[in-house]
């Protein structure tokens, strides 16, 4: 086939049927619905949520997890578009860890040192490490499916960011069930669960997002 023939062929398929922005918007909505549906079917809010809502520690968990979900989603929306700058939002990914570290410093300032390790270990580590990855499966699948329309420069990294965004959504749901509210608990266990999902996203991205 000559190149002119190929151009003629491609021109016959001119209209664009799928836009990546639209696909990703659908992926965010579907991902939240799947993750939330599973969450409420399986465990739901913690029993004492009304009183928990009045404590700073409980509420601050959402500041961290929502910051992660929002910043990682913003990167996911850009990473499949060639030529779109990632610098600003790449740096914004640091928002969640910085907020969390600030909360940890505050926690250590107000709580006696002999209570730190008990607060850090908590009671729900097992659930944290299983439920966050489980609740991430739906959103991660949606993000990867939508990103297949993209053209990421590094497919593995794009998959990892999709994993980060998916675990941000999952962690937000999980945090409303978990009764361990200390920033020390969040600092120890949440990152392990999030790293698992991010690693899976990296491996899947390398396979599925090549173009």
């Amino acid at each position, binding site marked *: *086939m000559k*190149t002119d*023939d*190929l*151009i*003629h*062929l*491609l021109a016959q398929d001119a209209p664009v049927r799928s836009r990546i922005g639209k696909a990703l918007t659908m992926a965010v909505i579907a991902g939240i619905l799947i993750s939330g549906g599973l969450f409420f079917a399986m465990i739901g809010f913690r029993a004492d949520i009304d009183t928990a809502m009045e404590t700073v520690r409980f509420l601050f968990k959402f500041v961290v997890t929502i910051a992660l979900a929002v910043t990682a989603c913003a990167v996911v929306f850009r990473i499949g578009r*060639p030529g779109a700058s990632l610098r600003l939002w790449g740096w914004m990914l640091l928002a969640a860890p910085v907020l969390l570290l600030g909360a940890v410093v505050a926690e250590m300032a107000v709580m006696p040192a002999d209570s730190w390790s008990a607060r850090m270990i908590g009671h729900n580590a097992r659930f944290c490490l299983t439920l966050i990855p489980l609740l991430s499966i739906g959103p991660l699948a949606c993000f990867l499916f939508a990103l297949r329309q993209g053209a990421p420069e590094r497919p593995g990294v794009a998959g990892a960011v999709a994993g980060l965004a998916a675990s941000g959504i999952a962690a937000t749901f999980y945090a409303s069930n978990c009764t361990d509210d200390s920033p020390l608990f969040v600092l120890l266990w949440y990152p392990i669960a999030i790293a698992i999902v991010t690693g899976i996203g990296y491996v899947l991205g390398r396979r599925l997002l090549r*173009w």
Partner: protein
Amino acid sequence: MGHSAREEEWAVWMRAAIGGDAQAYHRFLSAVTPHLRAMACRRCDQFGAPVSEAEDVVQEVLLAIHLKRGTWDPARPIGPWLSTIVRNKLIDSLRRRGRHMSVPIDDVIDVLEAEEHADALDRLDVDRMLEQLKDPQKTIVRSISVEGTSVRETADRLKMTEGAVRVALHRALKVLAALYRSETSENR
């Protein structure tokens, strides 16, 4: 790709193409191709890929531009988008071709002479991929590309609707790109 007036013209054509204007899209792809060819020839050396394969690289890059054009935001300039997609695909394609290469010097001279006519030659890669398509995709692609028929004529000939031919064509192009990719991993 620097020049802004040219880029603005390309952007106008591409916006029309996204809306379904096949002629504007044809103009866009035809205008971009000489630049791709120059880049591919220049870069072949750097990756140790045979210059005779430069036109195959051009075709692979054109296919990538085509399948990923939904990632261009029409509100933004086309230059950065196009050069990023071209650079990534060009390097991907050349790197793969550079691997399995050890060409004696006599062949290089033959190749350099042949290169002058590379344009006119039928390319092997895409034809080999085409062989792996199933019908009716294979017939549709061949009819439109090699025989130069329109979608409507192809539909009449195959007793299909125009819409069905368009869908089959789009699927066929996606399969072609996947075939290029699977050859990449085999060679790694």
